[in-house]
Every structure is written in C-alpha cells, then in structure tokens.
C-alpha cells in the first residue's frame, strides 16, 4: 500500500528523561509561564508566549536570537490526553500567528505530509519522566551533517564560479 510508505519514513525523535514527576513536566510544557523559560535553542529568549491549551487552540511563541532577530512559532493542538500525550502541529508564523513558509526565513523544513508532532509523557517511576518528541519531519541526523556539507558544496561551487569569472576577464 502506498499510504504505508509515508509512515515508514524515519521521523525525527528527541527524548529526554527528567528527574521530576510527570505532573510537573506536564505543567512545565503546558503553562506559558514556564514555556517562556525554555522555548528555543541555547542563547535564545522567549519574550512572548500566548497559549490557548485545548484541542483546537493554539500556542504562539516568540523566540529571540542572541543577535536580536525574532522568530515566531505557532503550535496547533489537535489531541490532548492529560499527563500522557499531545498531538500538535508546529510551524513558523508571523507575530499574528499566521503560518508562513519557512523558506522565507531561510529555514529548510521537509515536513511529512499529513503527519503531526507527537509529545509523549511517560512515568518511569522513582519520580522520573521520559519525554518523547516525535517531529513531523524526517530524521534530522543525516540532514544535520548534510546541511554542513551542503554549505561546503555551495562554497566550492561559488569558488568555481568566481574562478571562471576571473578567467573570463
């Protein structure tokens, strides 16, 4: 069945075990007061975070890069199983929450058609919680190294082009 091949793409999965009970991790994930404290990569801050945490609701979060550049992310909530699971869809947005093409920001995003982001909260006992985030994008690890390589290739190509231009002169 062709439909199955879509599901067979290896997804980007990020897991982490927190030394905290599940209710606490859930709270940190679903309360904007706490989301603002962790949203975004290292060195980024989150100055604005509006959250309407319910099925059909939306999260709108701003992240500010160390150089001051601001990016907005929106998350749509599609399914919520309290303390266990959230099915959502994250995308780049404008400050009003309207979806924008990540390419506009120079971001490559290879989304899997019809797939969602899934966040799982597992109680491991001993006050530990395992958090699993399954992204709606293909496994990034290969792409990660590929990105660097891709850029090196561009540089190589620019060098060739520049050499040719010099020759033409």
């Amino acid at each position, binding site marked *: 069945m062709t439909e199955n091949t879509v599901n067979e793409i290896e997804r*980007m999965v*990020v897991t*982490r075990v*927190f*030394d*905290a009970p599940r209710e*606490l*991790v859930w*709270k*940190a*994930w679903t309360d904007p007061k*706490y989301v603002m*404290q*962790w*949203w*975004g*990569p*290292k060195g980024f801050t989150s100055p604005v975070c509006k959250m309407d945490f319910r099925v059909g609701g939306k999260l709108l979060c701003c992240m500010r*890069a*160390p*150089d001051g*550049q601001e*990016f907005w992310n929106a998350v749509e909530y599609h399914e919520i199983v309290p303390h266990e699971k959230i099915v959502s869809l994250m995308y780049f947005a404008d400050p009003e929450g309207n979806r924008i093409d*990540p*390419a*506009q*920001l*120079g*971001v*490559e*995003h290879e989304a899997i058609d019809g797939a969602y982001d899934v966040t799982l909260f597992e109680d491991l006992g001993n006050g530990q919680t395992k*958090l699993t*985030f399954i*992204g709606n*994008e293909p496994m*990034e*690890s290969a792409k*990660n190294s590929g*990105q660097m390589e891709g*850029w090196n290739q*561009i540089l190589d*190509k*620019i060098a*060739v*082009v520049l050499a*040719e*231009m010099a020759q*033409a*002169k």
Partner: protein
Amino acid sequence: MIERLSHGPASVRGLTEPFALSQQMISKHIAYLVRARIVIKTKRGRESVCTLRPGTIKTVSDWAFNYRRFWEESFDKLDVVVNQMKMEVRDDRKHGERN
C-alpha cells in the same frame, strides 16, 4: 554578483552594468549560479530577474534553524525549569508543614 543580489533581486541587465562583461557572458555566469542552486531566475515580462535563494543568505548568517537542535536545546532548558519547579514544590511543602 552575489554581493549585489544580497541587497535584493535584480534584472540581468542591472547585473551586467557594473561588470565589464557582455550580457551574454553574464548570462552564462548566472546560469552557473542557477545550476549551483545559489540563484533563482524568474521571468518578469520581457526581463529575467535574479534572486538569491533565501537559504543561501541565511546560511551565511551565524544561525540557521535546525529542528533537532531546537528541541535538544529547549529540552536542556526545560530540565533546568523542571528542577526549579521541583524545588518550589518542596519549599511549599515545607511551609505547609510549618503552618
């Protein structure tokens, strides 16, 4: 040429002017840049307009968005937040016992 395009799209004619090269020669170079996926060429009326591929400009800047990195590093921060929350819960309990 890339420097010129980093300021915004330009027509092939506009790109030819600063160089002491024929338009034919410039077109050939643009073709290389298009093939190297550095430049996108579109037709606007009778003119060809060149635009730098957005990814190209961004990759030059110090930060490029990467989904895995976003989540890994957000999780690092979440760990700090959760630990802080845990401490607060403990403090609340202590106060509760005292009261």
